[in-house]
């Protein structure tokens, strides 16, 4: 419970700090942001369209391999705690698990998922 309260307290303080920066910065400056000021930075050129778009994410397949490893991480947390009690058996088990996942990396490598395709 104290942990949750602390986290929310820290979050609240950070939000307040950011708000404080905003109020501290010149209120006497023009508050109104005009249209030409709002144009996104392109070094003096005028964009034709909005920037938000269906972005072609080149590393999409890599993220799938990443998800596999992240799930594996969930098993590693409890594994780390009991590792010393369980002894060499635990080491062998995690070794096998990682080997299987590594085959995924090798396969992905062959398929070129770490390139910008």
């Amino acid at each position, binding site marked *: 419970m104290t942990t949750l309260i602390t986290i929310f307290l820290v979050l609240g303080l950070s939000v307040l700090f950011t708000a404080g920066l905003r109020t501290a910065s010149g209120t006497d400056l023009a508050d109104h942001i005009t249209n030409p000021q709002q144009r996104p930075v392109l070094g003096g050129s005028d964009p034709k369209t909005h920037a938000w778009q269906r972005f072609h994410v080149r590393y999409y397949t890599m993220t799938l391999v990443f998800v596999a490893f992240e799930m594996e991480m969930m098993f590693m947390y409890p594994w780390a705690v009991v590792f010393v009690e369980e002894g060499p058996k635990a080491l062998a088990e995690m*070794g096998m698990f990682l080997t299987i996942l590594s085959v995924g990396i090798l396969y992905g490598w062959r398929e070129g998922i770490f390139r910008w395709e």
Partner: protein
Amino acid sequence: MTFAPALTTLILFLAIGIWIAAILDAVFYRRISGQGGVSVLSPFYAAAAHLSRQRLTTEAPDRLNWYLAIAGYLAIATIGLAVVPFGPETAVIGIKTSVVLWGACESLVVVLVFLHGWSPNSPLALIGAYRYVAIGLPIMLLSMFVLIAAALPARSLDLRDIVASQEGLWNIIRQPLGLPLFLLLGLSLTLRGPFDYADSADLAGGTSVEDSGANRAGWQVARLAMLVGFSAIAASTFLGGYLGPILPGIVWLAIKTLILMAVVIGLSHLLARMPVARMLGLIWKFLLPIAFVDLLLAGLVALA
């Protein structure tokens, strides 16, 4: 320590850390580029200069997320620092699973940096945001492997136990591969040097290209806060945190944090950044196997 003084210590530690980090950054930069000295007050001058300018927004931006990205990045850095024990059994957030909480903080950084680049609706910031995710995700795997390796001899996911387990021998000696790999994560979390794929020069500042005034000041402060939080975590995991003779524990922690901050800043100014696809391959094909080896060695040492 009770809660209120602990929180005050935390905020002081963070504030002083940010100030020193800003000076260190300037000192390294000037030293390498061959320029003159730095005033110890220069961070305050820079902050005042940022705050003296108007805070601009863009056409139809995502205002809420722009704000939350900056505030959230700072909050995540602070929470990272909060799990660090300042002395035996004292951490502002003292839980049995503090390594897991820090892992969650690491992954939220990717989300917040992405949102920071997404929210202005500006092409260069958007490219920075998407590109950062490609590196921010796999680099996190390295850090989790080395953190798990550090947890093995402690038989606990509690950072206090991890520090206590280094009473005889620091992890930097017991697990020599751990700290170098973890420092790479630090470069990525703080958007620095070879891992600065979000705010880099080829995008004229990337996700922060549209930040002016208070937003720019806030983002810079949050980046430095993350450097302090990360360095304190790394100092606790690999350099024995508060452990040390004579001086009080928090002083030892501060000294070790400072050293690691200097190392991260130095690396960020001295190492070249490669194009993102090349880095992606390097992480998966080279650095990740090294992290496996680190885990294996740590496991063998823990059993020996």
